[in-house]
């Protein structure tokens, strides 16, 4: 599995111009100030925002070239964990997690079994029947992670996925997420403010400033600064 993206997106005054590549099973960390274009980048890779120019490939297959080719999000095998979870408010935590499997044609009973396992993996199995409105921020974040991971996407896009989890629980949630990503064998793009989220010191990191890659390096280089 691999991801390459050369992305040019113009949104009014804002210009995003980024290229990146993530190798098989690797995690790429993206840091940058608010408004640097991190979320825009993830949305374009997910297919939620068409690119104006450039090319995005997943496993060597072009999914968007800013022109004729633009694979719709549901056909991209891209998982996206939104910054503020965006759980479906009318469905229980369990049904939220089963949603993606059911949408891909998994029989609903099987989908629920796998959803429950995923919730257990993220430590929120006991919240399965709760409505999203009744979950704490940290619980909702874990449910959102479970909802995306259960579909085992080829590309995993995580937008500040641990921010809502309280500091004491964060290392364990992070460990579960990274272990799951490894077991799925997907490539991961992780947007974060916290370099401690990088799995290892050798993890590649890019820093966005005003829609451009201002710096590329390894987690170790960034933290030592």
């Amino acid at each position, binding site marked *: 599995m691999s991801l390459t993206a050369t992305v040019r997106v113009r949104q009014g005054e804002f210009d995003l111009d980024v290229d990146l590549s993530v190798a098989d099973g690797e995690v790429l960390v993206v840091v940058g100030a608010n408004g640097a274009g991190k979320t825009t980048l993830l*949305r374009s890779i997910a297919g939620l925002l068409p690119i104006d120019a450039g090319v995005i490939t997943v496993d060597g297959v072009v999914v968007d070239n800013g022109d004729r080719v633009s694979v719709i999000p*549901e056909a991209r095998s891209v998982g996206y964990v939104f910054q503020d979870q965006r759980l479906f408010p009318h469905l229980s935590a369990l049904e939220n997690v089963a949603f993606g499997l059911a*949408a891909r044609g998994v029989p609903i009973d099987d989908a629920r079994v796998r959803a429950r396992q995923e919730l257990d993996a993220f430590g929120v199995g006991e919240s399965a029947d709760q409505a999203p409105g009744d979950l704490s921020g940290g619980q909702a974040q874990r449910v959102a992670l479970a909802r995306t991971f259960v579909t085992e996407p080829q590309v995993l896009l995580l937008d500040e996925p641990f921010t809502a989890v309280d500091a004491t629980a964060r290392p364990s949630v992070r460990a579960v997420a990274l272990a799951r990503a490894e077991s799925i064998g997907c490539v991961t793009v992780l947007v974060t403010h916290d370099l401690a989220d990088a799995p290892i010191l050798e993890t590649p990191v890019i820093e966005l400033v005003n829609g451009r890659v201002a710096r590329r390096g390894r987690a170790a280089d960034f933290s030592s600064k």
Partner: protein
Amino acid sequence: MVAAGLAFAFIALPLIGLLSEVAWSRLWHDLTTTEAAAALRLSLVCSLAAAALAFALGVPLAWVLARFEFPGRAAVRALTLLPMVLPPVVGGVGLLYAFGRTGFVGARLDEWFGIHLTFSTAGVILAETFVALPFLVITVEAAFRGLDRDLEDAAATLGASRRTVMRRVTLPVAGPAIAAGVALAWARALGEFGATITFAGNIQGRTRTVPLAVYLFLQSDPEVAIALSLVLVAVSVGVLTALRGRWLVR
């Protein structure tokens, strides 16, 4: 303060007037006379059919108005909402010249299918839908506009097709507003008078709905007219209560 009190009294007094005239002991008898019962039955069937038709046509229209930019969208929206302010009689005249036997659509319906809408129950449903549809469209369009698009995006990245997103996310999340729109449309259809009598006429058991019967009975048998009016008041109050309660508007 005085003006406010007068305003409230102005709304409340007719209701009190109506309630004071109700012959409570004979209410059931009045409502079950052949003519009153026929009007009630007809009104129930037609208003429910009109609400269903408004739902089937109005939700897609609200969707298009909320989600697609196209030239003339403002004009389409304005025209859609026109029946809310148009005198219903004028709406009835318009329906007559479109769907009536000599109207440009009605003539074709007659020629090709032998369908006559004027002076028929279907004509009542059509007239009621005409006046009720804008209430549904305006409510549901607002809901679609206010919907969190990220929910639909999240569903798409989870592998849901557009149809699945619509069926399992968009419509359920907008559900309370759609229910409110249907309730409003239904209440409006139930009270429809002007367009109905102009387009569909006033035939007992076929097009004489409760409002038409009230108008007619006021001259011949006011007690029945009042009893039927009471039913319409009760329904209006019921719909209003439901709309204000948690059930529909969260």
